[in-house]
């Protein structure tokens, strides 16, 4: 039997969290707790790198698959596996968690042990979401993730933390419970067709469903994911949660949690309901484009740095959704790549803002000014991450946005044209903020004697900056492993629609509404084929 690498990746952080219970929970032992948690999360990161090293980049299939029966009466299995789409998201999760922990050593002043336990359990659940190949298992991880995040925001957050935490959990749950019903409905359809319940993703991929049902189920899935992304107009929880969360919470929230929505679209919503997806994709793209422009415009006028970064996430995630909606190679590849980029650069921005706020206990842009003269090193890192977030060529953000716009242009140039303004707007709000914070004379006396980066903060920022450069210069190292899996997903979606159209034609006399609902389908695949 081979070593269960994925299960151990999921279990290791939780096991570590339970180990932390052995350390006494008081002021004196807090540094020890912090170090122990860091070591555990670094072990997880090392194991995720091992996973990447042993991953076969030429294969489109799920690898390292483990499958055990869990609730056999309903065909529920514990099934995990990775493909090119999820692999790097797992590495990203494992990469950001130690940085977030390290960044919190001095900013978490109470209950360090519980804080580290929440972070580690959250890491387990996040990795679990990315590796699940069973919809039931996926939902368990998806919902289990909410509790530690809720506690992180609510206990260690800023002033309005309770409001933000409750809003976060209620919004996310409201979306996901309907997805639970859709999952049950899907498994029930499997039973109607094949005689037994199944929540196995690979089997459900092969299920062909009637069009009207596909639309309903797709909408239920898409709502859950749209709230998580968040897609305009479901984004209102995000600024609150981001602003009130502690630095580590914001990093994980922006870096990983938001990606779960887009990951869900790529992994579940689109391939499970191809006909509905092709039908609804233009509307998703419309919301995404509105979000790109709206998020950028709102970000521009924010007086609070954290809120600015939060709204920039709405804008950037809009790009990702647009890329997914194109359903062509460039668009989806760019979208997955942009998920990683956004995780790194926005995670980095939250870390920098956290460092400033640790020093000054404020995040208002107006309170700062001329920091470049006071702490040149921190500002240098800040500049690089800002440029990466804007999408300067040579840094990571450029590759992703370029691919997405390319894909969007080949799909529907109108979306690409509007989205491209988002690129310009992001340069405006980010650089304007950067200029007000860092250049000019030191206007506020409190800023005159701020300390520059400490060794611990070097250790936090250097990996981020390095990764921004590496991902910008050598994108192929990251794009290559995801290519076969994305290709397979795309051909599955495009096959799904004609297959459905034929089935609907055959069944046309039986139901009067089927041909009507399938009317746009014959058009779409041709377009998709042309795009390829």
């Amino acid at each position: 039997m081979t070593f269960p690498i994925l299960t151990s990746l999921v279990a290791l952080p939780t096991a570590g969290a339970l180990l932390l219970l052995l350390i006494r929970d008081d002021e004196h032992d807090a540094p020890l707790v912090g170090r122990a948690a860091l070591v555990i999360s670094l072990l997880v990161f090392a194991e995720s790198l091992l996973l990447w090293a042993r991953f076969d980049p030429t294969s489109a299939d799920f690898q390292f698959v483990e499958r055990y029966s869990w609730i056999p009466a309903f065909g529920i299995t514990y099934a995990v596996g990775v493909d090119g789409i999820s692999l790097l998201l797992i590495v990203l999760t494992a990469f950001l968690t130690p940085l977030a922990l390290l960044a919190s050593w001095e900013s978490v002043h109470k209950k360090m042990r519980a804080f580290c336990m929440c972070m580690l359990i959250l890491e387990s659940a996040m990795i679990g979401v990315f590796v699940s190949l069973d919809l039931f298992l996926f939902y368990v991880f998806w919902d289990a993730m909410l509790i530690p995040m809720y506690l992180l925001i609510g206990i260690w957050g800023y002033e309005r933390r309770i409001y933000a935490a409750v809003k976060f959990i209620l919004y996310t749950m409201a979306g996901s419970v309907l997805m639970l019903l859709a999952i049950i409905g899907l498994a029930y359809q499997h039973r109607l067709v094949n005689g037994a319940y199944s929540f196995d993703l690979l089997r459900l991929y092969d299920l062909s469903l009637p069009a009207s049902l596909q639309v309903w189920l797709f909408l239920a899935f898409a709502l859950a994911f749209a709230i998580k992304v968040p897609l305009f107009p479901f984004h209102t929880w995000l600024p609150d949660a981001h602003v009130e969360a502690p630095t580590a919470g914001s990093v994980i929230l922006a870096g990983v949690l938001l990606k779960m929505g887009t990951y869900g679209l790529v992994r579940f919503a689109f391939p499970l309901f191809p006909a509905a997806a092709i039908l609804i994709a233009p509307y998703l793209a419309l919301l995404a484009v509105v979000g790109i422009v709206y998020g950028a415009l709102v970000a521009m006028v924010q007086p609070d740095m954290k809120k600015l970064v939060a709204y920039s996430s709405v804008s950037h995630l809009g790009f990702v959704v647009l890329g997914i909606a194109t359903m062509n190679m460039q668009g989806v590849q760019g979208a997955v790549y942009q998920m990683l980029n956004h995780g790194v650069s926005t995670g980095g921005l939250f870390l920098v803002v956290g460092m400033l706020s640790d020093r000054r206990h404020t995040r208002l842009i107006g309170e700062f000014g001329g920091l470049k003269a006071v702490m040149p090193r921190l500002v240098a890192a800040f500049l690089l991450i800002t440029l990466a977030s804007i999408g300067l060529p040579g840094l990571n953000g450029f590759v992703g946005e370029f691919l997405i716009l390319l894909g969007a242009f080949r799909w529907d140039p109108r979306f690409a044209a509007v989205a491209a303004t988002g690129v310009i707007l992001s340069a405006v709000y980010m650089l304007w903020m950067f200029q007000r914070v860092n250049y000019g004379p030191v206007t506020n006396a409190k800023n005159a004697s701020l300390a520059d980066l400490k060794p611990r903060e070097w250790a936090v920022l250097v990996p981020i900056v390095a990764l921004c450069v590496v991902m910008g210069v050598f994108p192929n190292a990251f794009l290559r492993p995801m290519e076969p899996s994305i290709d397979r997903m795309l051909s599955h979606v495009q096959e799904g629609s004609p297959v459905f159209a034929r089935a609907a034609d055959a069944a046309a006399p039986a139901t009067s509404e089927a041909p009507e609902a399938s009317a746009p389908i014959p058009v779409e695949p041709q377009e998709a084929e042309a795009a390829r």
Partner: protein
Amino acid sequence: LNFAPFTAIVPMACVTAAALAAMTAEAFRSPGERMPIGPLGAIGFIGAALAALLLWDRSASSFGYVVADNFGLFVTLVLVVIGMLSLAISEATLDREHLPRGEYYALMLFATAGMMLMATASDLLVIFLALEVLSLAVYVLTGIRRDSAAAVEAAFKYFLLGAFASAFFLYGIAFTYGVTGSTRLDRIGSLVAAQSMSPTMMQLLAVGLLLIGFAFKVSAVPFHMWTPDAYEGAPPAVTGFMSTGVKAAAFAAFVRVFLSALDPLQPHWAPLVALIAAATMIVGTVVGVVQDNVKRMLAYSSIAHGGYLLVALVAANDTGKGAVLFYLLSYAVANLGAFGIVAILEGEGRSNDRVADYAGLWQRRPAIAALMAIFLLSLGGFPPLGGFIAKWYVFTAAIQGGYTWLAIIGVLTSVVSVFFYLRIVVMMYMTAGPAGLQDSRSAVPGMAGAALLVSAAIVFYLGLLPSRLLDIAAASVRTIF
């Protein structure tokens, strides 16, 4: 002497014997002497559990009135769990409130015996008898704090409305007898099936009256008015006991009567029950949101949980019947755990049951706060806890039965319910407690602490490894229906 006819009643006989022993012990106790009456009850429960396990798969029947089929035995075992946990968490209240130990335990044991009878009875009159046995005992338990005005008021309200419910139920039995000439469920079933195409007005009236009687007992909307008052006035340990035990017994009989004897009339009663289920879920959660008292909040939560159970019942398929059983267990454990904590936190002279009283509990008593959070999250239906699997099972049954709209109401109300469960979590974890309130209260009594840990362990077990129990629940319902 032939003992065979008695086998099916052995479980409840064990509990009754323990109740009689408790009464005798109390009567012969010299003043000031402490007697281990609680352990006596535990022995009775263990006997009942063993008997139930031995009777498993044998479908024993006594006198044609009591059937120990696997469905009834599953509920009996759930009732044993409820009884054991209730005994354990009662200890703290009894000492603090100086309640009469012997009477308290005897009443609790009699009530449990009645519940077991109700779960296994196969004759409408025996169901009524069991209902009265358990109800009378629970009325008295509700008002056992004689010097508390709230408790007396609660007991009186509960008694009056309960008496109404019993009257409705009795009328239902009478009408059913008038139509079919029998009170035995199997005969009623075959007679109703024969004329299910065109049921008489009288028949439908009988079904309606029985439905009202059951709806009272499971506190379904609009017959739920007594619940918040009774739950608030009773000592928390008693509330925990009756909110789970009465519900389990009433649902067992409800399922047995409506899904076996009256199953042929399902097209006639199902829309009504579906409507009641929807109203129960909505009212339970929405009104729960505005409660400031933890006991009242948990009362509305238990009304809402009754709604989910009704969804499983109205789905009327094997999945739904299995879901009722699994849900009862999962709900009972989490709810008893939560009330156990309310009981422990109740201080001398102060009830400590406002939501605000839980502020900063995490700082003062981290273990208690963590356990409370686990129970509340399970009630809210978060994975990987038992409550999640239970709700998922119910919604699966609903979708399978074609009640997608009920499932949608169910999931949305469970989001609303999360809001009020989390209010307590917010108080415990995110709000600073009153300054200077160091923990002056006594340590957790050993038995109660153990009961809470066991409950938490069961909650996790049901959430992580539910397969075995799901299979048993599914198998239990196949034996009779």
